[in-house]
């Protein structure tokens, strides 16, 4: 359960962030200069690899209980943020993440910006756009992969899951030469939010000294319980939003 859950959570989280980074890189490449965009991607990946290489061994050296307390707490905060956004999107209270619309907006912005050369980088704008896009999207994934991997004492599996997601998304992007608008990004974010929240609860409580009934088997109850709770909140919020709309319509009709 734990190894497959680790792989699924890291793969999905990484795939979602990679889809978002791909949109930015495609806009920089198609709208301006591919060479500078690729240099930006390469530089950001080098920084991310350096962060993972430096923090990975350090994290595995931290005592498991302390690691689970800090990482569990952070994962829980992250998970609740993801879940909050995913529930708001599922209920229509927040706009769905639309890669095609984001791509069009990015493309319009990059085409309007002036060209500026710096050293070996022909177009500094494309470079910095790709660099920031990949680094910022990658930082969250690096954190998730490292913390999940370190907690399970299996950083290599987390790294394989993260790399597999990047390769799959990059190959799909190369094949399509367009943003991956048909990837069910919002559903994937929902699943990742449920996983991060469940593991955050489990590890955070263990790190703080609690003992779970059934030990690791408690996760088999926690994951579906968090999922059911999230779906129930979606149903309640949808009903409340529909009620508010019909009340507004009735008010407009009577005035």
């Amino acid at each position, binding site marked *: 359960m734990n190894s497959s859950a680790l792989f699924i959570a890291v793969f999905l989280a990484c795939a979602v962030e990679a889809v978002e980074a791909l949109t930015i890189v495609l806009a920089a490449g198609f709208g301006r200069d591919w060479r500078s965009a690729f240099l930006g991607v390469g530089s950001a990946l080098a920084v991310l690899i350096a962060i993972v290489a430096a923090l990975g061994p350090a994290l595995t050296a931290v005592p498991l209980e302390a690691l689970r307390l800090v990482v569990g707490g952070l994962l*829980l905060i992250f998970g609740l943020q993801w879940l909050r956004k995913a529930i708001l999107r599922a209920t229509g209270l927040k706009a769905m993440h639309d890669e095609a619309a984001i791509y069009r907006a990015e493309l319009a912005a990059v085409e309007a910006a002036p060209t500026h050369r710096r050293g070996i980088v022909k177009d500094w704008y494309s470079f910095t756009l790709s660099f920031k896009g990949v680094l910022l999207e990658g930082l969250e994934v690096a954190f998730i992969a490292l913390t999940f991997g370190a907690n399970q004492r299996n950083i290599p599996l987390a790294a394989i899951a993260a790399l597999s997601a990047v390769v799959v998304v990059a190959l799909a992007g190369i094949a399509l030469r367009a943003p991956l608008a048909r990837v069910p990004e919002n559903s994937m974010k929902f699943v990742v939010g449920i996983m991060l929240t469940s593991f955050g609860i489990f590890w*955070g*409580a263990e790190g703080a*000294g609690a003992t779970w*009934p059934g030990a690791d088997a408690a996760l088999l109850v926690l994951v579906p319980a968090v999922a059911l709770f999230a779906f129930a909140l979606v149903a309640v919020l949808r009903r*409340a*939003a529909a009620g508010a709309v019909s009340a507004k319509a009735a008010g407009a009709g009577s005035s």
Partner: protein
Amino acid sequence: MTGRLRAFLQFWYDFVVGDDWRVAVAVIVALALTYAVSTSSIPAWPILPAAVAFILPVTLWRAARR
């Protein structure tokens, strides 16, 4: 320089704390409570699930009201 430092701190605040600081505070309080209760004979594991069951609807309700 101050602007850069502020941007740096803002980035980490957004990265770790996110859209609603109440969520981060609730998690930290729940962890502290779990630690305190775990030193007694009372089971401490229900505290974090209860905190999530409380804070998630609260933060969603606040977002929905905007």
